[in-house]
């Protein structure tokens, strides 16, 4: 996952219909699940999760075990080839999936919880405390995250997966908080929230039952965004050799490959399968996020076909500003001009 602003459209996207009833929300969930992008993304994530859980058992070799098959290209025995000391790269990838998924999802969870608390609080409450929280999240957005994470990870002793996940989680909640705050601010002024307030419902009940359900899509999308960032960051940290090397992960495979000059030696198999796995995970997460975007912003949903087939077989161009006129047999006869 490249570290870029893929998600930057979301803040300006039209909010989901706030007056959704429970049934309509269920329909919404259904609509989200039948979305092809979401489904294929979730299937890919599911497969990777299975690998994360069972990777250790599935791995044909011990990922750290040396063997005499030194630097071999992919074969039936070693699907992804071997390293300079004969380790099986396929096993390393399988075993390393767990760490990647663990750090990604833990960091995503931590960041999302902080983001929801800070974003919703600062959006719903008013006054200097809310302004302060919002200012803090803006500061965290602007401060470059990776250098900060590198510094903190470097300072914290024995940085295992938990440490990395927590450091990433605690430094990357600000995007979500910002989005959620903006959305909460607009929800706060809606009729159904005003009505709940007028009938004397408690603040926490309003937040829990009126506000949060309407933020689901944005919470999900910021969670996925953070997972993408966390995965990219963890792999980067391992690649440059900053995080501990106690457990295998994809970044660490690349670290060894880089350290042993794999590419100059032509050992492409040491890099390419891992890179593709990273891209696969990133694509899966992006697909789910596209689906959520389309769910939140219906304008993105409409079919993107630029031409359609008319009844007489001719192609008709669908275009904003020029509604197509279908050829109609009766039109060929001039109607009394």
């Amino acid at each position, binding site marked *: 996952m490249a570290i870029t602003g893929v998600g930057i459209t979301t803040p*300006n996207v039209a909010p989901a219909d706030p007056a959704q009833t429970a049934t309509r929300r269920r329909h919404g969930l259904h609509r989200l699940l039948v979305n092809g992008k979401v489904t294929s993304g979730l299937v890919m994530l599911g497969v990777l999760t299975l690998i994360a859980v069972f990777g250790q058992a599935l791995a044909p070799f011990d990922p750290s075990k040396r063997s005499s098959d030194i630097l071999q290209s992919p074969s039936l025995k070693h699907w992804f080839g071997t390293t300079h000391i004969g380790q099986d790269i396929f096993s390393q990838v399988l075993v390393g999936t767990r760490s990647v998924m663990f750090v990604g999802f833990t960091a995503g969870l931590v960041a999302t919880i902080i983001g929801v608390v800070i974003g919703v609080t600062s959006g719903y409450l008013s006054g200097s405390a809310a302004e302060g929280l919002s200012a803090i999240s803006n500061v965290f957005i602007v401060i470059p995250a990776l250098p900060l994470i590198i510094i903190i990870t470097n*300072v914290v002793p024995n940085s295992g997966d938990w440490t990395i996940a927590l450091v990433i989680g605690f430094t990357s909640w600000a995007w979500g908080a910002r989005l959620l705050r903006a959305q909460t601010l607009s929800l706060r002024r809606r009729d159904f929230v005003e009505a709940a307030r007028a009938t004397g419902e408690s603040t926490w009940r309003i937040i829990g039952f009126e506000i949060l359900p309407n933020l689901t899509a944005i919470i999900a999308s910021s969670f996925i965004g953070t997972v993408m960032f966390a995965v990219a960051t963890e792999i980067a940290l391992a690649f440059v050799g900053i995080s501990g090397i106690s457990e295998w992960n994809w970044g660490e495979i690349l670290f060894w490959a880089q350290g042993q000059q794999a590419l100059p030696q032509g050992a492409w198999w040491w890099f390419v399968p891992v890179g593709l796995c990273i891209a696969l995970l990133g694509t899966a997460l992006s697909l789910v996020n596209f689906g959520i975007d389309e769910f939140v912003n219906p304008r993105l949903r409409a079919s993107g076909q630029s031409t359609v087939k008319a009844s007489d077989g001719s192609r008709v161009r669908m275009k904003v500003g020029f509604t197509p006129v279908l050829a109609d047999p009766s039109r060929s006869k001039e109607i009394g001009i």
Partner: protein
Amino acid sequence: MSYFLRRLAFYVFTAWAALTINFFIPRLIPGDPVSALVNGMRGQIDPAQIQSLTVLFGLDKKQSMWEQYTSYLAQLARGDLGISFGNFPLPVSEVLTQALPWTLLLIGVTTVLSFLLGTLLGVFAGWWRGSWIDGLLPATTFLSSIPYFWLGLIAVALFTGVGSFLPASGGYEPGLVPGWSGEFIDSALRHSLLPAATIIVASVGGWLLAMRNMMVTVTAEDYITVAHAKGLSERRVMMNYAARNALLPSVSGFGMALGLVVGGTFLVEYVFSYPGIGLQMLDAIAKHDYPLIQGIFLVVTLAVLAANFLADLAYMALDPRTRKEG
């Protein structure tokens, strides 16, 4: 308070917050590695430099936190960032002055190019939905999902090597003296081509997608229908009505995404051994060069803030609603 002043206040606040974070991080280091390093070099470093490190890292335990903080700010105000252990006896500020131009040029040029290219493609993809540009989306999504550094490694493997026009690493031919000579500039340009291309390829998809989605969203606005109804040329409706409005969120996103982009490009510098700030930072970490790490974090944060400020100015120029009521 006008929009401009509010933003300015925000940047001052953020700069202060960054300085403060930078103050606390080294004080949270368990043990006292800096003291140990300073003691190890006693005799080589002059007392003034020891004093400056003492202020930066709070080595004097008798001082209160507040005293440490004020003298830290006072010292930074003088531009004294201490001495670099890894590049001894160079002061941190000098190491930064050498590395910063490389990074600024590389990241500055590539990020702006990538933003412009991605945004322009996004305009077309969003306007002609279902066209071939729109068909690029899956490919760009996949490319955006690949880490910058991995793409860089592959680029090195594919395009460099014996007889290639493109060098695999470094910022210029070893042996050349950095300066305004034609030979040096030519060499520097050639060395920057591959890292630049890597950053652009990896990041263009994000901008493309963002702009495309905003175009699609904006195309459904009433004023676009009005523009069509007015019989304006397609180019004018697409550019001056749709793209001009869709650009606004992209520009504000540009500033905010910079903090992330910087992180990605650091690793590209690492892969290409490009002599910029990112390479220095990873090097400093390997050498436990705490003063340099601290200085780099500070400079990078301030640079991102400055870039954000520029993006804000651009936003203000583009969106009349942020200007004062006339």
